[in-house]
């Protein structure tokens, strides 16, 4: 049974290799091949899952050692896999949602001549992501970690002819690299501390080392998590990443890859448990991000960017939960899974809307779409209810638990975190309602010709600005797209409930993440009611602002905060001013320095040598008598020197 684990990774990898090296002859069948391999790995995951269920809780860890990878002295890196409850959960999520999105893409990418390559990249991503969650040591995890980075780079920049896409891709990779720095330093620290970086030994030996070391490792891991999971301060890339095709946004930038950070922290739970300071840092990052993302989400008119903001904030919740330690890990993962369902569903819905609106993304150009694309509307709606935590739907269970845990942190900390989480819930409800209303309700703004909006400089003038305006013909998407949406909708409705039946999910994960019940200062029911109340408030507020009065086709100037939020709270401006321009200056200066100083020194010596030579030449003036003079002088010096030597 263990030997199947490698195949989980191998299948999509083979698919990628086949599709990317196969050449044009595969163009016609490429998308189906890709989908097939994705399904294959899902098909492999299911029996493994049943196998695990078959065993009793303690025995649910499978190992597979393939070969010794980098053996150098004490440094022993193996290619070996570890399948336990945590990774199993991820495997199912990745392969399941992944397969659905493959199917969805068949329809979505129908008209793209590079569709084969797209599926190749998707498969590559699956392989890398599975490697990430299946690795049994940090170095191999690192390989998957950067592998998904690569895949996301390729997919964000899939439409390379658009400079914006290429730039976004580059940005995503670079920001992730900063995080990767953290991960690699963490691994080095582990190596110097424990002499190894395999999960088992490291996590087992945590007790034997100092807290300082653990804190250092933990902070470095957190840095890595921030990069991959778009947490403050490394969140800037996620918004731009929406340049990629929508299925990509759904799979990579909502359901799976961006949650890798959460996986990393949960996986390294033992380390964080030993390093309270690191944990504090984690919860702070989580809390800040969940607000940050939510605020940004409120201001965006680009539907995908709005969703991206929400992703950010939801992951903030997970990180927050993961930072809470044993009381939170399980809920972080649980929210991760449910979020995987509904956020993917929402993105696919958005994609379906764009598909029907010839790739318009500006929500101010939507409106009243519910009757044109009912399926999309319903599935999107269910996802919406799930994310705002409507009682009974999956989001409600997972998020509510996180808020409880946040309070359970205890002390003022607990109050602050809980408050933040609650506030976040309210804002979530607000911006999601806004999206819902602007897209599916209200007047059909897309019938009128657009007027270029000054507030959103990022949106490049759409095609229809030239010549006379032909309004789009909104229509429902093909089956290949709607079916995945429906399945995901089902998931987002049911998952939370199923997981929470006598804490099935928590029990399932407990052996890995050792769970303990938090004891919030308020009763669970009180917190739940509070959650529901703030949620209702948020919805109501949004309704009054966007449901009652018509949405202006051009974004109003808006308050200072709004404008800031539109620009990702000026985070990018900061990056640009400091990093991009500053860096540019630096490199220019260095190039100058290299030429004029470092190289100049050499050229200088050469030149001076030439000058010296030129001057000495003058002595050779061609007059025999002056030569004689010099000889005489030389003789004099010679004599003088000889005499001096003797001191005569």
């Amino acid at each position, binding site marked *: 049974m263990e030997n199947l684990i490698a195949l989980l990774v191998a299948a999509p990898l083979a698919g990628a290799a086949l599709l*990317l090296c196969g050449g044009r002859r595969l163009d016609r069948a490429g998308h189906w091949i890709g989908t097939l391999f994705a399904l294959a790995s899902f098909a492999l995951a299911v029996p493994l899952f049943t196998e695990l269920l078959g065993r009793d809780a303690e025995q649910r860890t499978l190992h597979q050692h393939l*070969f*010794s*990878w*980098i*053996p*150098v*002295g*004490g*440094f*022993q890196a193996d*290619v070996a896999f570890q399948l336990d409850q945590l990774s199993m959960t991820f495997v199912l999520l990745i392969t399941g949602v992944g397969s659905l999105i493959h199917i969805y893409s068949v329809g979505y990418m129908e008209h793209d001549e590079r569709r084969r390559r797209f599926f190749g990249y998707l498969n590559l991503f699956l392989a890398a992501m599975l490697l990430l969650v299946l690795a049994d040591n940090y*170095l191999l995890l690192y*390989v998957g*970690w*950067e*592998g998904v980075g*690569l895949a996301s*780079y390729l997919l964000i*920049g899939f439409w*390379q*002819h658009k*400079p914006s896409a*290429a*730039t976004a891709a*580059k940005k995503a*990779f*670079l920001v992730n*690299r*900063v995080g990767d*720095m953290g991960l*690699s*330093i963490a*691994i*080095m620290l582990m*190596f*110097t*501390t*424990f*002499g*190894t970086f*395999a*999960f*088992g*030994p*490291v996590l*087992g*030996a945590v007790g034997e*080392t100092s807290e300082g*070391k653990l804190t250092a490792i933990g902070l470095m891991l957190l840095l890595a998590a921030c990069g991959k999971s778009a947490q403050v301060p490394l969140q800037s890339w996620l918004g731009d990443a929406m340049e990629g095709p929508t299925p990509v946004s759904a799979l990579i930038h909502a359901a799976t890859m961006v949650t890798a950070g959460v996986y990393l922290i949960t996986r390294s739970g033992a380390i964080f448990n030993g390093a309270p300071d690191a944990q504090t840092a984690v919860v702070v990052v989580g809390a800040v991000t969940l607000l940050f993302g939510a605020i940004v989400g409120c201001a965006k008119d680009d539907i995908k960017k709005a969703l991206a903001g929400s992703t950010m904030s939801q992951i903030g919740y997970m990180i927050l939960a993961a930072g809470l330690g044993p009381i939170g890990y399980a809920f972080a993962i649980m929210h991760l899974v449910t979020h995987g369902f509904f956020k993917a569903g929402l993105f696919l819905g958005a994609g379906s809307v764009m598909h029907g609106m010839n790739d318009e993304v500006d929500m101010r150009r939507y409106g009243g779409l519910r009757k044109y694309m009912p399926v999309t509307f319903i599935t999107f709606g269910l996802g919406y209810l799930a994310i705002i935590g409507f009682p009974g739907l999956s989001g409600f269970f997972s998020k509510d638990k996180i808020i409880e845990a946040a309070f359970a942190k205890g002390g003022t900390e607990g109050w602050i975190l809980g408050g933040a989480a609650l506030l976040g819930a309210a804002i979530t409800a607000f911006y999601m309602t806004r999206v819902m209303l602007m897209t599916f309700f209200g007047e059909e703004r897309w019938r009128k010709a657009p007027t270029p909006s000054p507030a959103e400089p990022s949106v490049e003038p759409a095609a229809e600005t030239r010549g006379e305006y032909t309004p789009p013909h909104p229509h429902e998407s093909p089956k290949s797209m709607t079916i995945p949406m429906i399945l995901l909708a089902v998931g987002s409705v049911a998952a939370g409930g199923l997981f929470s039946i006598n804490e099935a999910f928590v029990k399932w994960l407990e052996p890995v993440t050792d769970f303990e019940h938090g004891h919030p200062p308020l009763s669970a029911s009180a917190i739940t009611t509070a959650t529901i109340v703030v949620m209702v408030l948020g919805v109501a507020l949004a309704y009054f602002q966007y449901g009652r009065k018509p949405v202006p086709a051009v974004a109003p100037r808006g308050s200072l905060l709004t404008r800031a939020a539109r620009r990702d709270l000026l985070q990018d401006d900061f990056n640009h001013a400091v990093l991009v321009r500053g*860096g540019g200056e*630096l*490199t*220019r200066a*260095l*190039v100058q320095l*290299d030429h004029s100083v*470092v190289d100049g020194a*050499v050229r200088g010596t*050469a030149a001076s040598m030439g000058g010296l030579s030129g001057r000495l030449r003058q002595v050779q003036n061609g007059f025999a008598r002056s030569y004689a003079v010099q000889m005489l002088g030389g003789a004099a010096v010679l004599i003088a020197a000889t005499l001096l030597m003797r001191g005569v």
Partner: protein
Amino acid sequence: MSFPLLTATAAVPAIGAIATAAVPAAKRTVAKWLALLFSLATLVLAAVVAVRFTPGAKGPFQLTESHAWIRSFGVRYELGVDGIAVALIALTALLVPFVILAGWHDADPMEGPEPNRRWRPTQGFFALILAVEAMVVISFEATDVFLFYIFFEAMLIPMYFLIGGFGDRAGSGGEEHSASLRSQAAVKFLLYNLAGGLIMLAAVIGLYAATADQLGSGTFSLTEIVQARADGKLALGTGTERLLFLGFFFAFAVKAPLWPLHTWLPGAMGESTAPVAVLITAVVDKVGTFAMLRFCLQLFPEASSWATPVILVLALVSILYGALLAVGQRDIKRLIAYASISHFGFIIMGIFAMTSQGQGGATLYMVNHGISTAALMLVAGFLISRRGSRLIADYGGVQKAAPVLAGTFLVGGLATLSLPGLAPFVSEFLVLVGTFSRYPAVGIVATVGIVLAALYVLVLYQRTMTGPVKSEVRAMPDLKARELAVVAPLIALLLFLGVYPKPLTDLVNPAVDHTLSVVDQHDPRPDVPVKADAEAAK
């Protein structure tokens, strides 16, 4: 005595060089095939060497040959290989055929009437390449300092003619102008390295004087000197040893090149044709880093550890400085050159970290960097030969016109930024870990290099390959069969060594351990050593 395998490995390309040079002017194609044939023969011999070599067998060197040569100077013709040498010989023998294949048309006569019938650039080009290969191989094999020095120096001459004589026709501002730029670059290359070499000559002579003074008869045999040192027969004074070390190190640092002695490299790589650039950075420069490992450390252990802090700082500067300048370049080949400077920084850092990870990683790095740079540079060369310009700004959207070219270019680039799964990652990470485990601060600062690497590679890729298609690029043909035959194996190798570097590490580890034992350094122990069997228990 047994068949002199090592001599043969060096002799075959030498003979090939002569044979190629002798081909009459009209028969250019013959010359090409002859050269390719000989390079392949060398590859076969190198393979035999690798097979006959048994990693971990006792004694520092294997397949040794030893003959008297210049008694009066205490010089012997002494060859021998350890794992490191075998790896690098294999690399050299492997790359040269690709270099020849890639440069197939680089030395074809210019259009229009030739000034002189007897002028045979094509023959010369390939003959010189083979000559370089021969000299590089023998300097990897030499275990006699003097013998090494001779070829270390002599190698400059063919290299010099390759750089100065055969620039690519992409010079801005006419053939005349680019020719002058070329010869400047060549002269700079030669003078830098000659200066380094002559300083080293002084040190070599000094070494002889010291050994002659203490052992009775002067010797250059590495093994003898190391042995005498171990037996306490030979004890250089601290001052002497440091001076000699500096003399040696200076030459190697110029060759490597280490900041601030690097300024010859961008010119040389920029002005010469892509294959020659590969020859410089992937093959010839490796002799420098190799020599640090073999000669600097083993001849002057104390001085090495004395100089380590400074060298580490310089290496660190190289890493960051090279990367930053790469970002600032407007010329594709110069960009790659600066990237190489950054990578050589890593190699040197690994060598002087004095840990088995560091030095093993550095050795792997030499090999991997050779392959990855070859891939990237050769593809860049193909690109340049199509458009006739080295300026990044002249490209854009190539990806649409020539997807395969763009794809291979991207893979080469990803290797350069050492993406996990590709060979360079293994070596780079080893170097970082090795350095970190002894000098944490240095290791951490060095990791910034991986971000910068991503920056210059991706910027290069974005500016050239993506974005709207430039009109000059639109009709650009994709890779031809010959070019694909060059690139594909390299990429395959990058993948293989990235996933399964074990053969290489097994080859290198014993040699590295030996070096460390000579230098008398031991890996720092982890504070909480975890037994491997504990892992199984989990």
